[in-house]
Structure formats: C-alpha cells, structure tokens
C-alpha cells in the first residue's frame, strides 16, 4: 500500500497546544514524522530587550505557565552572575523548596494528562485533585497559584514562616501516600500497562545523540540531572537520588516522574528542617555591568538554559532561552517512528511537551518541496473511491 500523509494538529483534541506533525503512515504504522512549529510565537526575547532587568523577571515567568518558577530562577541566576551578587543562604533554600513544589505540581499535572490520553479519565481526575493541594501551598507561600513572583534579582520576595512549615509538612505526608498509590496503580493496572509498555521506544544511544533532557532522558537510563551535575540554589546541601529507569518506553517515563514526586517531597522535608535563619534578599543595582552569562536549571521538563548579554545599561542587549521541549522534540520524532496511529497522543504526551516554551527559537521553513496535504474529507473521499474501484 502506498504511504499516506496525515496532518496532525495544529488544532487537535490529542494536543494541548498548537503544533503540527506531518505523519507518513503505512497501514497503521508511522514511518516518518515532520514536526512544524511556529503557531504560538510570541517574541518574548525581543520584548525583553526593551524592558529593564527587573521587569524581565516577570516576563521570564510567563514563558511557560507550568514551569514558571524554573524560568524565572534561571533568568535571575544569570543576572546575579553578571552582577556578582551572592544570594543569602535562606533565599537559596526557599528557592529550592519552591522549585521542588513546582516539580511536584507539574508531574501530577502530567500524570493526569497522560492518563487522559490513555482514556483513563479517573486517574486524570485523581491526579488533578491532588495537584490542588500543592497549588494551595504555593498560593499560601507566594500569593499566587501559577505565576508566583517569588524569585527576584538578589533573593526571594517572601519568607516561609513557622506556621506555614507545619501546614506544608501535613500536605507533604498526604501527597507521599498518594504518589505511592499512583505508583501501585501504574505498575499493576492492565489498561495503563497495555498502553505504555514497549511504546515510544527511545534507546539510550539515541537519547544521547539527539540530546534528550530531563525525565525523557532519565527514562532511557541516562543519569543526567542539572541538580546533581551542576548544583544551583541549595541543591549542593540537600542529599537526593537521580532517578533513572531502563525501560526506554512511556511506562518508564511514568515511573520516573512518580518517583521524582517522592524524591521531591524528601528534598522539601530536608530543606525545611535545615533551613538557616537570616535575610532573604539583598539589594541589586538597576544597572548591570557589561558582560555575558549563562545559567542552567533543571525545570520539571528538563534542562533549561538562559543566556543574557548586557552592555552596561539597565536593559539586556540580548536574552536567549532554550526550553526543554525544544531539546526533546527531535527525540520525540525518533520515538514516534514505528508506533501505531492510536498510540501517537500517548507518545507525544510522554515527553511533556510545552509548545509555547519552545516557540521562541525555531524558524519555520516551509518552502522545501511542495507537499500534498490531505484534509479529513479528502481522505474519506479517497478511501471510499479506492474501495469502490476494487
């Protein structure tokens, strides 16, 4: 049978954000994938050049709605490096706690969405209900549920008090039992095992050569984590384990993330108990000396990289962001080859894509050669005609 081309997206119920995939299929198998980005480009880097360093903290937060703290932290670390500021230790601990909370809420969100793609609506509801508990804590600490506005150049803006610590401990215990329950469900439930085991294979060799990052790489057995490799904030003072699985499939990605929730809870507990007293913020000057710096942060989805170049004024001369989804996109294309059409949404959800994150960097090149795109009706008509001829 002749290979077919099926356009998938930019608007599709299986996708949360606009991205277009051109699948070449033979019968039910995908034999080639071409992703096409460019539907939610917002020009954030350019806007950043017209605003001051302090105002850009809020802009950095809005690159991604889910890993907002990771982006803001990465940006502030870069500017602090340029300024040569030493952040107070207590602020570093608070940053660590916030970053881990964000990881927990992101992984719960992801678990829910992946369950939804599998058609397991109950798990989706459960995971999102438990996510509310984390969001409640985040709101209590920062005053916001999503764009926290916690980190700033020179420290953090709000402190964690004694009463808050108590409430956090209580919620963490609840979340830990829930995470263990989900681990149990995901290793035993037949629906989940059928939809995840052996699907979307990414071999360790491919993961390295295609520069996969974060949980996607860790599910292929590659132990790479910026928190351990190049500790930032207070990660050098907190003991933790880098979680890896060797399954290389969607199931391993699920297990990596659930285990990371448990590990994050341990990190938060340790950080809360060993948090030193002191100031949480030092003043930073508006003008940033000339120079350039990069900073890396392990966002929930993977490695996050910010580059800032300053020309000595109060506005950045250049600001560049590399979000984890962009790094994982090539690996995703590799994973998708060979899967059934019905498994496409699960595999795409498996890397935890955040298209709006990736959309600042890719230039869309659609000139190549003329392609014939089948619309739904065309495909349907073709199929009918093809069967009538036989």
């Amino acid at each position, binding site marked *: 049978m002749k290979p077919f081309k099926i356009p998938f997206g930019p608007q599709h119920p299986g996708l949360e954000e606009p991205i277009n995939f051109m699948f070449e299929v033979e019968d039910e198998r995908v034999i080639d994938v071409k992703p096409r980005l460019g539907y939610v480009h917002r020009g954030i880097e350019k806007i950043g050049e017209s605003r001051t360093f302090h105002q850009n903290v809020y802009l950095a937060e809005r690159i991604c709605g889910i890993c907002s703290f990771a982006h803001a932290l990465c940006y502030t670390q870069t500017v602090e490096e340029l300024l040569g500021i030493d952040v107070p230790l207590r602020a570093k601990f608070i940053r660590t706690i916030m970053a881990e909370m964000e990881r927990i809420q992101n992984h719960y969100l992801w678990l829910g969405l992946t369950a939804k793609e599998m058609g397991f609506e109950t798990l989706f509801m459960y995971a999102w209900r438990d996510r509310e508990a984390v969001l409640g804590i985040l*709101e*209590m600490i920062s005053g916001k549920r999503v764009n926290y506005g916690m980190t700033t150049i020179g420290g953090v803006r709000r402190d964690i008090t004694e009463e808050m610590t108590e409430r956090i401990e209580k919620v963490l215990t609840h979340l830990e039992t829930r995470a263990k329950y989900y681990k149990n469900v995901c290793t035993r439930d037949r629906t989940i095992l059928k939809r995840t085991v052996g699907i979307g294979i990414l071999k360790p060799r491919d993961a390295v050569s295609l520069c996969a990052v974060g949980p996607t790489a860790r599910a292929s057995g590659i132990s790479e984590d910026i928190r351990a490799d190049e500790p930032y904030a207070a990660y050098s003072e907190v003991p933790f384990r880098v979680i890896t699985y060797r399954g290389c499939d969607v199931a391993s990605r699920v297990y990596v993330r659930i285990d990371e929730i448990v590990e994050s809870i341990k990190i938060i507990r340790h950080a809360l108990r060993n948090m030193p007293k002191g100031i949480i913020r030092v003043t930073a000057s508006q003008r940033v000396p000339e120079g350039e710096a990069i900073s890396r942060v392990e966002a929930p989805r993977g490695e996050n990289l910010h580059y800032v170049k300053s020309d000595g004024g109060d506005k950045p001369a250049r600001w560049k962001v590399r979000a984890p989804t962009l790094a994982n996109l090539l690996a995703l294309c590799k994973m998708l080859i060979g899967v059934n059409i019905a498994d496409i949404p699960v595999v795409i959800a498996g890397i935890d894509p955040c298209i709006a994150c990736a959309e600042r960097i890719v230039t869309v090149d659609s000139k190549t050669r003329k392609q014939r795109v089948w619309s739904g009706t065309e495909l349907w008509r073709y199929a009918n005609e093809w069967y009538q001829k036989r």
Partner: protein
Amino acid sequence: MRNLLEKPSTLRFPYERMEPVERMRAKVSWQIDKCIGCSLCVKVCPSAAIKLIGRGRKAEIEYNVGRCIFCGECVEICPTQTIFTTKEYELTFTRTRQMVTRFRRTKKKRKASSKK
C-alpha cells in the same frame, strides 16, 4: 467506593467562593492623598499598567487593571505606603474603559491646585 461517601472536591462556584489567602495579590488601590508623585511605581511596573498624570503632590494616577499582572512590585517600592493590595479577584468587565481607574485627589487639594 469510598469516594461515593465523600464530599465533592470542587466548590459550587456562584454560591460558594474560595477564601482568599492572606498573602494574596490581586487588584491594587491607591490612597491618593498620600501620593508624592515620585513615579517609582510607574518605573517598576513590568506591564505599564500605571500612568502618572501631573507632577509632584498634585499628580493623579491612572491604573489599568486589564494590563496589571498583579506582581505587587509597586506596593513594595512605594516610599509612602500609598499603594495597597486588595483581595478583589473577580475582575471581569464588559467595556475596556471600565478597566481604567483614575484616582483623584480629594476636593480640598484640587482647589489648591486650581488656584495656582
């Protein structure tokens, strides 16, 4: 089965509402008579939601909720504690101009300014 007996996790919104938390940042407001017109809030605002009309102690503030991202930087930077956060979070409007609030000085001061 246990879930059948539990209360729902959601609120029945129009009848029940979320209690705002203590640190919540929502719409900001001005006690405009305390304002000295230093324009620090205008400079610090990341989304250009604040406009200063006039100068010095006669200055008035035009605040656009539609542009505001509720970061609370203006509240922190204000040297005279003129700006404060309210807990008003249901901010829906039908007209664009309803989003813009002009904080005017009380009459006594306005008279003084008009004489000049």
